């Protein structure tokens, strides 16, 4: 089991999600984050104060996958999230020792395969 963590641009999120679903990756968790990297800073002004905004809005995806799913998952993200401009983000793959599905108590591989909703 691995945990794939990806930082992507918010405006690319929907494309990334579609690419993942297309690759049968249906279980994931996202959160809004802010990132710093090579992007140029924005400057803002509030009355007399000038402010340099060093962080840009990003979205973080966290996806638990079984080992043989790592490559298609990462590939889907890499191609859907790319714009070619600085700030596209990163993908990290971390080892996972154990996974449980809370609803059933199922473990590991079984835990990360979502039920397919009746009408999907």
């Amino acid at each position, binding site marked *: 089991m691995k945990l794939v963590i990806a930082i992507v641009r918010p405006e690319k999120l929907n494309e990334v999600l579609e690419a993942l679903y297309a690759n049968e990756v249906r279980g994931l968790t996202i959160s809004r984050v802010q990132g710093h990297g090579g992007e140029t800073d924005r*400057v*803002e002004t509030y009355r007399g104060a000038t*402010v*340099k905004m060093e*962080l840009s809005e990003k979205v973080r995806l966290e996806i638990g996958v079984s080992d043989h799913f790592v490559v298609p998952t990462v590939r889907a993200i890499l191609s859907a999230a790319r714009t070619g401009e600085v700030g596209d983000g990163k993908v990290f793959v971390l080892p996972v020792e154990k996974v449980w599905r809370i609803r059933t108590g199922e473990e590991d591989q079984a835990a990360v395969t979502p039920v397919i909703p009746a009408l999907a």
Partner: protein
Amino acid sequence: MNAADTSWMLVSTALVLLMTPALAFFYGGLVRSKNALNTMMMSVASLGFVGVAWAVAGYSLAFSPGGAGLGGLTHAFLRGVGLEPGPAAATIPHVLFMAFQGTFAIITAALISGAIVERMRFSAYLVFITVWSLVVYAPVAHWVWGGGFLGKLGALDFAGGTVVHINAGVAALVAAVMLGQRKDFARQATLPHHVPFTLLGAGLLWFGWFGFNGGSALAANGVAALAFVNTFLAPMGTLVVWTLLDLRRSGKATAVGAATAIVVGLVAVTPASGFVSPIAALALGSIAAFPSYFAILWRARTRLDDSLDVVAAHGLGGTVGALLTGVFAQKTWNGTADGILFGNPRQFFVQLLAVLVTIVFSAGATFVLLKLVNLAVPLKVGTREEGLGLDVSQHGEEAYGSGEGAILVLPDARLSVAVPIAGAEPAAEGGTT
């Protein structure tokens, strides 16, 4: 001069002025948060730029004696606009009449912005609305209210169905087409970032609209009361019908829908408010829900990025209201003219003519104006700036700043000498001044 009329017109003018900030919130709530300030500033700026243009020349072009098509420059820079009553309103100070009419010019220009949010360069917008208020709004106001040909023809427009709403709605349509779509239009869901703001805007708009319609009587008399009560009843009808349509369609009575319904009802009753009976106003408001409701559904399926549906709410709502004025007008209530229902079909065709003339002129003039502005300043921001959001790219600000990762840029030389008053000693555990 009459003190009671003056009292009411002072209030009415303040109420209509409030409508522009109210519009800022109505529109501002419907966009994405990265464009919230830009959208609000499109209304706020009108308070400054169109207001000054009005004092400088707009009022004169609309209301000073002139031809059938345009007023003169007699009152430019407010020359001759004093405390004694003017020709247009016999019982209130002339200067107050000028201000009351100014609030109409301001909000009309601001209404257009709803069609072009999230993508227009702010400097181009400033030039556009300022000039638009002089070359499009002022003439149409002159035609209907300033002694121009539509008024003479007998067109009924109590508080601005043609002058304000059709005019703004058509300009909005032209502007939306000329600017083109937002880059995410029909590609991505663009959700309203703050629906309560939209409800707040609708509530304050309704409140202000009592001055808009009630004040258009220019006196605290029975006509004012009639216009007021019609402004009270019509949106109620629209709101009920709209809610029922919503419930019928999806089982959910949407809040954005309710806010929209209130505005549509107000728009529709605007030209009719001083001319129809209260129960007719309730009917008019209820009827007006249908065309706008379905136009909004239909628009979403087209390629037209009239982002906040100004055409469906104001253009169409205003048209429906102007035409229904020709249906429901009742001499026993207004002392002026009857509509179809009371045996005067001619009135309906006069209304239709006024609507068509306004549409043609507003569309043409707005088109030419935007073409010219575009030569000087590109109308649309770049795709990158659009992606970043117009708050940051056009205003250098965020609507809801958290301060995370914000580094204060110290001025080159932070003054190390103390400020003059720094001798006074700090209190308690106070910082070192």
